């Protein structure tokens, strides 16, 4: 083994990793040094990704030891590895979609001033590092989810570099980049190397490896094959090292000529075909499929080859009716069809079946029984008038189990208890019970043991012989060559080559997949998304950005302003201070409860106890908020403290108790209401009039409660929003997974949100008691405020799924809701119309958000 003559920065010794029954890495020794660009190559399944995950601290090895600069280390999380100078850029982005670019770049260690995040410095840091990666056109305030994928990937790269790492891992980091970005990336990588950073570069794209790598390591089947300097080998020498010849798997005999397939159909269910079973003409979809034409005959197994993510999955989904907005035509048996839903696809006349990519989340219902899973697709065939026929189902499932040799003791056991291979058999069995005519296989043997693979190969050939047409996507080249009558290679959403007969060999397949032999510029610029960089600080773009972020609150404020003007115009005395104050007082009470709800909704939860906390606070106030000035002050503090305590109790049940927020707060709400009733069994009480007068009138014409709200925004909300805790709340709501991967303290953020919510709800209660000068423990009132707080948040434009929004919108929403009744009264509309109007406004507000969903192009994304 030829090795570089430097002292290794990172050394792995004897690393082994198993996933279930599959060995991803077997006794791997590996090292890399500072100041080198070290490429890692190998086919799919060679172990590259597993190795990188171990180095980056995402997973722990089962055996072996990692040495960093000679010292043994063990990472328990990516954050820990990052502290030691190892950062990783994965293919799946770890960005928080609703947060800005600068927030994401500095997520791990933001610059601070007086304990709060210094946004100005953060923005400068982002601008600086974005300039370094050659993307000055990305605006730091832009929300990540508004950027195209290639820009997001550059932000991910920037985020990794800002921490001045000593080892950077790039795992397929160029998959979404434009050609221009890739050139820029080369410059960055070379710059890193020159500064003494170690770069581990994983890619399938041999041209890239040739262009920048100093050293290359080849992996195959979980083993480290060789490491050498790039200068010493050519691409033609490297490719065979990736393939290797291991225990040759036995593949069933293939079809010698295609023309016989029509004659070979002997099953009674299938009519002899003269034309192709399936024909696709010029299929287009969303810049991912760019004109695919394909034919599949009955009895044929056609393979989809090529690198991961070139459109193969999407092609199968498109055929199955999952994608919307397809261009081009699909013919089955010569009839042109537009398939809109999997239900239509599986119907007997069409007969499509899809074995999906991820069996655990797409193919199976893990907690349900094996039997239930097997009959899921053919339930209507096995039932009569919608009633389950157990006998029929049992015989069908036994049939499937026998045919596929599914190893299961008890068919009533949850399918989760089966091994990976058997689980996949259940997925296949489910579809075979439907007697399909065309089988779409999306990488069916991924993560499955060798024995089961053999069985599946045999099954596929048998099915083909009975007349099924099979479209087979696999990331395993050997499989494609062994199983398929012919293979079409995908690249950039197009089919660039077809291989069959003697042409169907490893060398041709890999060469075609990597698109070698084509000038990079020609195909690359076509296959990448075309983007033009526009000047950064255009006024229109700034406005656009502001609007995207603030559309919700702006609209709700507009609605409120209109309503208020209408209302004021009907006042005979004009816009008197009394009118303003009355509107403000009523709105402020709901406003504080809405603020409380906003905090919780930002983190992705709901708090159904806010109304009860408010009621409890107002009842407490009606008991103790009297007496001397000193007593009254203490009383006010006690009321606020009680709210904080209630919030903390909520936080404990949700964060530490891990109880679902809706139910948890429903339960705690009952407790708080009970306390309110105990404090104030019947309406009444006594509230210090001086305090009431001070807070419920006005100061120089401006209602005091309005000033209170402004003060809350300035002195409580603004610091919170710019604190790390507040930012973590947004992160948590945006993507809990990414937040966790970034090492953020999400438990603490959630705890803070619920606790503060309690405090703010109590503020609303305090105000209520001051406005009404009494307290009342009414369940109706509590429920009213809870539900209307959620309505206010929705109207104000905060996303109900969390991650974006703020309290300004919620306050506007509260004002809108409270002004409706006044407005109707003033226009002599019967008071009876008020609840209806309110309901319609709420429904309208939330449905507007829903309409966006109707335009989604991949229907599968809509579902959880």
């Amino acid at each position, binding site marked *: 083994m030829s090795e570089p003559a430097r002292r290794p920065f990172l050394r792995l010794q004897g690393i082994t990793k198993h996933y279930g029954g599959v060995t991803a890495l077997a006794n791997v020794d590996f090292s890399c040094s500072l100041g080198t660009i070290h490429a890692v190559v190998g086919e799919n399944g060679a172990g590259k990704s597993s190795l990188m995950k171990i180095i980056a601290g995402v997973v722990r090895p089962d055996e072996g030891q990692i040495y960093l600069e000679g010292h043994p280390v063990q990472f328990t999380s990516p954050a820990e590895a990052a502290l030691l100078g190892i950062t990783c850029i994965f293919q799946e982005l770890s960005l928080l979609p609703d947060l800005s670019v600068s927030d994401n770049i500095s997520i791990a260690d933001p610059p601070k001033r007086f304990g709060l995040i210094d946004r100005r410095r953060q923005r400068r840091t982002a601008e600086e590092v974005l300039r370094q990666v050659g993307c000055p056109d990305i605006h730091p305030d832009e929300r990540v989810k508004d950027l195209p994928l290639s820009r997001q990937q550059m932000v991910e790269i920037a985020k990794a570099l800002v921490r001045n790492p000593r080892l950077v891992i790039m795992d397929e980091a160029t998959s979404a980049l434009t050609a221009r970005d890739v050139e820029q990336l080369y410059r960055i990588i070379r710059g890193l190397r020159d500064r003494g950073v170690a770069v581990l570069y994983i890619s399938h794209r041999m041209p890239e490896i040739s262009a920048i790598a100093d050293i290359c390591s080849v992996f195959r089947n979980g083993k480290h094959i060789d490491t050498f300097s790039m200068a010493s080998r050519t691409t033609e020498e490297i490719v065979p090292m990736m393939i290797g010849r291991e225990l040759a798997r036995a593949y069933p005999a293939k079809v010698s000529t295609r023309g016989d397939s029509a004659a070979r159909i002997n099953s009674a269910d299938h009519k002899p075909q003269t034309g192709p079973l399936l024909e696709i003409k010029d299929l287009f979809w969303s810049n991912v499929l760019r004109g695919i034409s394909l034919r599949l005959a009955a009895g044929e197994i056609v393979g989809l080859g090529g690198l991961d993510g070139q459109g193969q999955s999407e092609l199968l989904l498109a055929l199955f009716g999952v994608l919307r907005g397809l261009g081009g035509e699909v013919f089955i048996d010569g009839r042109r069809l537009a398939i809109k*839903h*999997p239900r239509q*696809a*599986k119907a007997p006349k069409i007969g499509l079946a899809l074995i*999906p990519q991820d069996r655990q*989340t*797409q*193919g199976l*219902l*893990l*907690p*349900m029984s094996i039997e*239930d899973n097997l*009959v*899921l*697709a053919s*339930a*209507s065939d096995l*039932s009569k008038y*919608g*009633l*389950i026929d157990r006998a029929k189902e049992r015989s069908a499932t036994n049939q499937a189990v026998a045919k596929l040799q599914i190893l299961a003791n008890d068919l009533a056991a949850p399918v989760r208890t089966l091994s990976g291979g058997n689980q996949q058999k259940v997925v296949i069995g489910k579809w075979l019970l439907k007697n399909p005519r065309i089988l779409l296989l999306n990488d069916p043997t991924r993560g499955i043991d060798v024995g089961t693979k053999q069985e599946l190969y045999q099954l596929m050939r048998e099915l083909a012989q009975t007349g099924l047409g099979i479209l087979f996507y696999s990331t395993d080249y050997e499989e494609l060559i062994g199983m398929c009558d012919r293979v079409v290679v995908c690249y950039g959403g197009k089919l660039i080559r077809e291989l069959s007969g003697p042409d169907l060999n490893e060398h041709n397949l890999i060469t075609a997949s990597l698109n070698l032999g084509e000038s990079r510029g020609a195909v690359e610029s076509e296959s990448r998304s075309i983007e033009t960089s526009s000047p950064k600080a255009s006024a229109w773009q700034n406005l656009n950005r502001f609007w995207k972020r603030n559309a919700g609150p702006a609209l709700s404020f507009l609605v409120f302003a209109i309503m208020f003007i209408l209302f004021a115009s009907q006042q005979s005395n004009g816009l008197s201070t009394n009118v303003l104050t009355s509107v403000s007082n009523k709105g402020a009470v709901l406003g504080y409860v809405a603020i409380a709800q906003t905090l919780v909704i930002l983190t992705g939860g*709901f708090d159904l106890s806010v109304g009860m906390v408010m009621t409890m606070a107002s009842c407490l106030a009606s008991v103790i908020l009297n007496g001397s000035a000193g007593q009254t002050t203490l009383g006010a503090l006690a009321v606020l403290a009680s709210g904080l305590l209630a919030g903390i109790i909520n936080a404990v049940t949700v964060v530490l*108790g*891990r*109880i679902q927020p809706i*139910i*948890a707060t*429903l*339960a705690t*709400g*009952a*407790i708080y209401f*009970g*306390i*309110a*009733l*105990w404090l104030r069994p019947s309406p009444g009480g006594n509230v210090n009039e001086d305090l009431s007068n001070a807070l419920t009138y006005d100061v120089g014409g401006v209602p005091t409660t309005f000033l209170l709200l402004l003060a809350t925004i300035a002195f409580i909300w603004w610091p919170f929003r710019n604190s790390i805790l507040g930012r973590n709340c947004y992160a948590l709501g945006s993507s809990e*997974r990414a937040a966790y991967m970034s090492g953020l303290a999400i438990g603490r953020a959630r705890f803070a949100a619920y606790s503060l919510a309690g405090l703010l709800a109590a503020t609303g209660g305090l105000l209520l008691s001051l406005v009404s000068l009494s307290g009342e423990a009414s369940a*109706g009132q509590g429920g009213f405020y809870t*539900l209307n707080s*959620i*309505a206010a948040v929705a109207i104000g434009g905060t996303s*109900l*799924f969390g991650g974006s929004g703020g309290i300004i919108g919620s306050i506007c929403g509260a004002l809108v809701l409270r002004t409706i009744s006044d407005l109707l009264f003033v226009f002599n509309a019967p008071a*009876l*119309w008020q*609840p*209806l*109007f*309110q*309901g319609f406004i709420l*429904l309208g507000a*939330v*449905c507007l*958000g829903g309409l966006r969903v*109707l335009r989604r192009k991949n229907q*599968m994304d*809509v*579902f959880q």
Partner: protein
Amino acid sequence: MNRIFTKTNQPILAASACILVILAIGAMINPNFVSPNYLLLQLEVASFLGIIAGGSMLVILLGHIDLSIPWTITMGAMMGTAVAHVEETAGLLTFPVGLGCGALVGLINGLGVAWLRVPSMIFTLGMNAVLQGLVVLYTGGAAPASHATRLMSILAVDRTFGIPNALFVWIAVSGVLVFLLRATQFGRYLYAVGNRERAAYLSGVPTRWVIVGAFVTSGITAALGGIMLTGYSTKAYQGMGDAYLLPAIAAIVLGGTNVLGGSGRYTGTVIGVLLIVLLQSMLSVLQMPEAGRQIIYGGVLLSMLLIYGRAARLRE
């Protein structure tokens, strides 16, 4: 033995144990608590909650929630009684119209949740407000006929062979629901969609219609509950449904149905209803003031959830 202590059954056993504890405590305070007469009375009261909770369980099995129950109850009752007093129809329209209203509400809820993908909590919340508005508008000036019909009284108040008719109605509704859940395709699809909608969708299940079906059922049982309650209190009145939302959800959750959907047995809901009713009953026998009752109510719910309602850690 392991079969009995499965994850789905544990809550049912825990809830049953709680019921026994409550009966024991109640009996100690007042032996009449466990007298057949009193227990039958409890079953009668439980019937109304049971009917309402039964349909809602289907919605929760999907991982959704129906917050429009309160005013669906009221609307079903009011519409039902309104048509009852039209001479020509001799009160026969009560049930079709009342239940039809409930079904319509459920249909709209289902469409909003399944097609527009609005979170069910919010959409049904809005529907609840709209229904309240409609009922307020309808009853506003005049006081339309809202007395219970003879049929309603018979079903809600009378007894046959000493057993409350309401209980028979509950049993009948339960029978239908259990049948739906266990013997029909729809029931299986319900669990599938609640478990993982994406996998059900990719298996060709008509997931949207399943969601609509669940909400329609919830609306129908809510309306039926409203009609029965009218019979019991001889009059339909505004806000009659408000007191039933929380107990219904609590009963379903206490019975072991997972709030996130996908698992739960109807038996659990029945036990949960009985637990709630007995708990409330015992608290009134203890002559505990309403305040204490609420606190204990919430506390019991919380304790049960802490025992078996906890979610998995993110790391797993």
